[in-house]
């Protein structure tokens, strides 16, 4: 439904978007994820019509929308600052877009009431934006941008200003609303957890380029670059050289005097090729005794323990100085914990636990 075709955007000397192509499908909840300055907001502003691509074209439902001004696009945007009109009541804010379409009065009223109901704001309709809370303002902004029933809704860091608890509730609300209305949502965020929660597909961006576009699970489990593995969640990266041993299995020599690690990879690596083994901390088992059956086992000393309540992350220093993180669920009470600081421990993981990456 939305197609970026070799889009490049330059601001003077600075290139914000490098020759980027991307398809976003109808009724999808799509997330653009990346650190600040990666170009994700520029992408969104080009969809909204506030920037025009320097090169390439953007299609919406087969039509090139490059020359279409923002007020003529079937696209609405929810701004990061919400951009509610402070001189208008909540009701008038939501009705603003409908009035511009010169709809009959009763139709506008019906639609506004519908939006107020959808976002549970009926009680606040007569108030001004400064008289309601941040969470309510966020819902007004959403109601206002949905009121015109756009084909595409853009959300620019929509939950950034909310506290964590409210943010989590709102994330599920957003998903519900997206499902009920059947609108295509494109959300811009730097919060990977948010992107993973709400989106059906995530595009990870860096320096104006797409690093990976996939479902949240695939992005997490099978990142296709060290950058994506590192950006999404916590990860151990072990650099080494690959040596194929057949059946998509590889030996990774990573340190003098240590036995090579075993990993599987669908992607081929040639003998002696530099590779990075990315393993999520929760896939590393920590034990006091040497495990018998594990594909990979290394010994180290507990350097630090981060207690997160439900989880504990152990930072284990290997003799060569490398630090490996291992995460376990705290299924027992803290007082029964066996492992403590400076304890010698064994870390182990299976051959399929990690992902072998070229770069």
């Amino acid at each position, binding site marked *: 439904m939305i197609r970026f075709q070799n889009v490049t955007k330059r601001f003077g000397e600075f290139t914000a978007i490098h020759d980027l192509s991307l398809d976003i499908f109808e009724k999808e909840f799509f997330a653009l994820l990346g650190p600040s300055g990666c170009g994700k907001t520029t992408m969104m502003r080009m969809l909204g019509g506030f920037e025009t691509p320097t090169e390439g074209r953007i299609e919406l439902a087969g039509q090139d929308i490059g020359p279409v001004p923002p007020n003529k696009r079937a696209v609405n945007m929810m*701004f990061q600052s919400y951009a509610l009109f*402070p001189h208008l009541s909540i009701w008038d804010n939501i009705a603003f877009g409908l009035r511009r379409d010169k709809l009959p009065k009763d139709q506008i009223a019906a639609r506004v009431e519908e939006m107020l109901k959808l976002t549970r704001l009926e009680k606040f309709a007569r108030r001004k934006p400064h008289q309601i809370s941040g969470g309510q303002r966020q819902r007004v902004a959403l109601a206002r941008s949905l009121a015109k029933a756009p084909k595409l809704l853009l959300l620019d860091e929509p939950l950034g200003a909310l506290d964590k608890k409210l943010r989590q509730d709102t994330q599920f609300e957003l998903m519900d609303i997206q499902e009920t209305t059947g609108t295509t949502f494109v959300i811009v965020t730097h919060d990977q957890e948010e992107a993973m929660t709400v989106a059906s597909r995530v595009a990870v961006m860096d320096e104006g380029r797409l690093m990976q576009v996939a479902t949240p699970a695939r992005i997490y489990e099978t990142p296709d670059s060290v950058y994506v593995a590192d950006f999404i969640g916590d990860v151990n990266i072990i650099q080494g050289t690959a040596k194929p041993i057949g059946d998509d299995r590889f030996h990774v020599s990573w340190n003098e005097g240590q036995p090579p690690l075993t990993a599987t990879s669908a992607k081929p690596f040639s003998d002696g090729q530099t590779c990075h083994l990315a393993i999520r901390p929760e896939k590393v088992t920590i034990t006091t005794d040497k495990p018998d059956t594990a594909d990979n086992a290394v010994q180290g000393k507990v350097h630090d323990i981060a207690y997160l309540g439900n989880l504990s992350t152990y930072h284990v220093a290997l003799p060569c100085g490398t630090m490996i993180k291992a995460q376990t669920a705290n299924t027992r009470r803290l007082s029964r914990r066996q492992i403590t600081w400076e304890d010698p421990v064994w870390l182990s993981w299976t051959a399929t636990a990690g992902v072998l990456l070229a770069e």
Partner: protein
Amino acid sequence: MMRRFTLIAVPYLWLLLLFLVPFVIVLKISLSDTALSIPPYTPVLDWAEGIRAFFSQLDFENFVWLTQDDLYWKAYLSSFSIALVSTLLTLLIGYPIAYGMARAPEEWRPTLMMLIILPFWTSFLIRVYAWMGILSNEGFLNQFLLWLGLIDTPLTILNTNTAVYIGIVYTYLPFMILPIYAALDRLDGSLIEAAEDLGCSRLLAFWLVVIPLSRNGIVAGCFLVFIPALGEFVIPSLLGGSGTLMIGKVLWEEFFSNRDWPVASAVAVVLLLILVVPIVLFQRNQQKQAEAEQ
């Protein structure tokens, strides 16, 4: 408690001494008669005769006189219309300047602000004299227009109402620009984008979002121009002609040419009463703005 009281007392004492006391003196003179003496009016309050005599002697004939001679109400009316027209002109010129300043790149703004304030560094009187040099028949403007060939004979601008408008607009323009600029500077640019996103053209977004949100600045600027312009004396007397009727000029003539202090004082008192209305409105606007920002 004591400290707070002192803090409040200082400005009130200041107002009492420098505003209320002089006003009472002027009011007192306006209720007396002219006399060939120094100062040229009969004393009103004679302590020897007591308070009762004071009230029985009060006479409002000077105020009655203001209504009898049509010079005065014509002067008030003409001042009012000149002040109103020049306020509107100042708004029309000042708003785009303020808007341009608020939309200018961040690093230019202090310079632009400086340029607005710069004229205040020269004496107001000198600037008005400079306008005489520009607007007179042999002035720069006429010479320039003649040189361009746009006109054959010099335009008579000096000593007309046009010159008064030019003078007032020029002098009070910063008072219009600064509050509007302050309002526009705070305006979140994403509001305009949001309006466009919701289907407004640029122009409509300006009308529906920018203008209402700078309303307080507009109102403040208009009052800051209108109030002093209404009682303006220097500009009409230097740039205006014999046909320019403004109450400030009438007041000056009553005091210094006619030496009728009581009537002049009565003119001043009425002018003040007329000004109280816009000043109160202005105060209410400021208060409402302060409340809205909380």
